[in-house]
């Protein structure tokens, strides 16, 4: 057996990502200062993004007869850079929590960087095994991150994070087992694992290959929380710290979508995926209508959004560019939404406010209920505006032009490929979804009802009873950059389409 030639330049993004994790660990060990750890992790994530973009399209490496396992293409580089950027963004969102000591800094940064490494691997993977290993590396640190938290004074300690973590862990492990079984069956039927040679199984093994492909898709569908494999998502998002919920809903979901795209483009999975898509968007939107907690609502909406992406993937290879473009628009908008939630619900302030109001029980410092957000846009005009961009984008309407183009891309691709019935279901769902996006958006601008007393100027009363609180600078910076990206892509979506064509 001869050894494989390894092209280290092709692996540069991976080295940068893994190096970031090690750097975080070492800085924690030797410097042990919060700022140093966070800044070095941030620098590492940005280096990873830069490395991915600079290397761009390069020679594939880890090649054997029949295929390569590491394929730097233009879409892969964009996806890897996006993983790194999302990691940096989530780090920015976590800055206040890290300062308050709600999370141990070194461990947090190390685990986040590990997860990023998994994401980079998924982006470049050239065979099914690397793909699943990457996906597991992406998910594994998240089991811990979901449950990893301490409580600020007067916050109510609860077992929800632990529950969330355990649910997520169990469901994920089972889904991986299902995906591996599918992979084994596909390998048995076709004898290939490399994506470049993957194709529906030949004659005597067609059924076996079909079952394998279906199992593989089902296993991966857990990662994107497709209905009926979605039950873990709302509980996990709501139990996790808000930045980690943001990461689950963006980077982790993007990983699942990339993996599904790799499979759906090559195997015949239209039937399974279209069934999953219809269920996912319809159930996701209908249940989201009834939610009263902010993070749960965002979780259900993100389930529904995954349905639109699955609809594009159901078309097979022609749908992949549309699905990936939609996914990029979606993760950017979703990061803004979670960023605004994190900015409006700083744990320390929520707890202090509860103390000030002499609340009888310790308060809940998570995303909170929808009512907790009533009128907050009057205090924070820019946060309100950012949330409007995010929600309208998720609903696919201007001023969230990025979301509008995402919707047009998917529906256009469905019609062009003759899947008009699925396009009809997608647009009906867009109408249902608007009902709850509008509700949240309007709530941000509604003054709370004052109990029993007629008020001449509700705005004045509101300003007095709700003192302004500052938004931490890293959070502001993250939101500004993300919103700028969303607006840029809204006016020049061609940049993105070029990257994935």
């Amino acid at each position: 057996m001869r050894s494989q030639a390894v092209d280290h330049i092709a692996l540069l993004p991976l080295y940068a990502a893994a190096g970031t994790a090690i750097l975080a660990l070492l800085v924690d060990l030797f410097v042990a200062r919060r700022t140093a750890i966070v800044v070095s992790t941030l620098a590492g994530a940005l280096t990873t993004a830069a490395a991915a973009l600079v290397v761009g399209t390069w020679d594939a490496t880890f090649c054997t007869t029949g295929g390569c396992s590491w394929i730097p293409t233009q879409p892969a580089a964009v996806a890897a850079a996006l993983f790194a950027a999302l990691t940096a963004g989530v780090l920015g969102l976590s800055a206040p929590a890290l300062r308050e000591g709600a999370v141990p800094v070194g461990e947090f940064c190390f685990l986040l960087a590990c997860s990023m490494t998994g994401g980079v691997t998924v982006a470049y993977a050239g065979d099914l095994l690397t793909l699943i290993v990457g996906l597991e590396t992406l998910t594994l640190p998240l089991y811990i991150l979901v449950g990893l938290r301490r409580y600020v004074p007067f916050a109510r300690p609860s077992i929800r994070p632990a529950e969330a973590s355990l649910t997520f862990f169990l469901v994920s492990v089972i889904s991986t087992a299902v995906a591996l079984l599918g992979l084994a069956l596909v390998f048995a039927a076709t004898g290939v694992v490399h994506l470049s040679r993957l194709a529906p199984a030949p004659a005597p093994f067609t059924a076996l290959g079909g079952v394998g492909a279906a199992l593989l898709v089902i296993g991966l569908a857990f990662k994107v929380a497709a209905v009926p494999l979605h039950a873990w998502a709302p509980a996990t998002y709501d139990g996790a710290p808000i930045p980690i919920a943001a990461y689950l809903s963006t980077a982790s979901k993007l990983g699942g979508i990339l993996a599904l795209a790799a499979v759906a483009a090559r195997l015949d999975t239209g039937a399974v995926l279209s069934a999953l898509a219809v269920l996912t968007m319809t159930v996701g939107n209908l249940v989201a209508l009834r939610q009263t907690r902010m993070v749960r609502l965002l979780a259900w909406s993100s389930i529904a959004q995954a349905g639109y992406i699955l609809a594009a993937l159901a078309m097979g290879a022609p749908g992949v560019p549309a699905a990936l473009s939609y996914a990029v628009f979606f993760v950017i908008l979703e990061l803004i939404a979670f960023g605004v939630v994190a900015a409006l619900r700083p744990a320390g302030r929520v707890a202090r406010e509860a103390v000030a109001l002499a609340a009888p029980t310790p308060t809940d410092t998570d995303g909170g209920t929808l009512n907790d957000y009533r009128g907050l846009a009057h205090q924070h005009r820019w946060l309100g505006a950012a949330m409007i961009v995010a929600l309208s984008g998720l609903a696919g309407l201007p001023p969230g032009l990025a979301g509008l183009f995402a919707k047009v891309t998917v529906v256009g691709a469905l019609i062009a490929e003759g899947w008009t019935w699925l396009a009809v279901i997608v647009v009906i769902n867009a109408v249902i979804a608007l009902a709850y996006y509008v509700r949240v958006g309007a709530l941000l601008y509604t003054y709370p009802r004052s109990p029993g007393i007629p008020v001449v100027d509700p705005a004045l009363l509101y300003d007095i009873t709700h003192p302004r609180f500052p938004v931490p600078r890293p959070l502001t910076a993250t939101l500004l950059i993300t919103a700028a990206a969303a607006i840029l892509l809204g006016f020049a979506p061609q940049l993105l389409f070029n990257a994935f064509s």
Partner: protein
Amino acid sequence: MYRDYLEPSWGLPQALLIALLAVPLLGAAVVALFPAARDRQARLVATGFATVTFLLTLAPAFSSRGEGWFAYGGRSTVPLLPWVEVDLDWVPSLGLDLHLGIDGISYPLIVLTGLLTALCCAYTVKKVPDGGSGRTLAALLLVLEVGVLGTFLALDLILFFLFFEVVLLPMYAVIAGWGGLARRAAARKFVLYTLAGSVLLLLGVLIVVTGAGTGDLVTLTGAAELSRNTQYAVFALLAVAFAIKAPLWPLHTWLPDAHTEAPTVGSVILAGVLLKMGTYGLIRVGVGVAPLGAAWAAPALGVLAVVAIIAGALICLRQTELKRLIAYSSVGHMGFVLLGIATLSVTGIQAALLGNVAHGLITGLLFFLAGTIKDRTGTGSLNQLSGLRETAPRLAGLVGFAAVASLGLPGLAGFWGEAFAVVAAVQRGGPLWTTLAVIAAIGGALTAAYFLRLLRRLTHGLPTPSVTSAPAGISGIEWLAWAPLVLLTLAVGVAPALIIGDTLQPLTTLLGVAR
């Protein structure tokens, strides 16, 4: 083909088209950034931007139009030739071009939009409805103007859809933020209904773009690029989409609530220009792109239009809420417009265009007046309003003028659209269309009946306490906002050629296949 000869060079007209969208957008951004302490200045600035936009809309009338009849190539009809146009690439992957243009069909509506937005912005300088800050309302009005102007200017299907969507959330915000007591439910109903319409539009537009390989309306108009069955499907989708927006009975149920709850300026913009997006879309996109589908669906459309006329009139006869009555009268007026379109004749569509503009002017005025009455007396119920002419003769006179114009008195703007819609239906001939014409004419008589009933209850009789206690005078800014509408109602009534002067050639192109 002909475009090679007419490749528009980049010049003043092109810059003008871009400026028509850029000025209000810039205005909205500037106004929204004003600090709270300078609310009044912000509203004045908004009025300034809206006025500049209005003046810009007047400019194309003086540009050299009708570049000649270049009918090169094998096409049987004269191609659609906009007076001015600009065509830039935007998103090639989606086939989306920033292709804007003005021709005789869209021009009157563009001027109407510019005018009404400027008047509404001026109106907010004096009176901001309760609910939110005046500068935000003014900024939203400017954003609405961008969306409406964009819809009328767009010569690319996907661009048309995009601008069609732009108005959705701002209008929701206007109703939900500054509306009456039941504003939330009304605003939600409005936004969900209209989004349902616009997703159907999205499907229709994308089916056309996929089938024809282009979204360019100049290429698509009047040319049979699509197969018969595709045209049927596309027209069905588009007709429902635009019927929701217009609105056409039985898809009109969002309209009365939205109008009743919306603030005065919201009602004016909604009735004056937003509804026109539906009828304009039906003419430009529905009939233009799917002529066979239009011919196929015309009888159904005609029947529904006539039902709308009768239903609107009958409901109005029983209505006791002032704004609701005017809202339902819109259903009837839009019924006449749609009847005109359904005849698919040049006369009918000219009548529809006239009816569009006349309805925008007259109903805009009516909503201004109704809003003022409601603000001053604190009620919109006809049971509590009477004898307005005793205490506020000028206001009562204006209401009388607007009501008489709306019921279609010859010599005022409302007459031409309704009369010629009926004439076009008679000309179309055959038992169905003759019957429709007769019923529509009866509907016209009913319109007169309910407006006269409105006048009798509102202006005549003894003043009720709420009317007596209301201030009577009309302020300068109110005259400023209403006078142009009154004058234009008279002007269009006397010289309808102002509106339809340059529509013959584009309409012949549009109907080239259908006839």
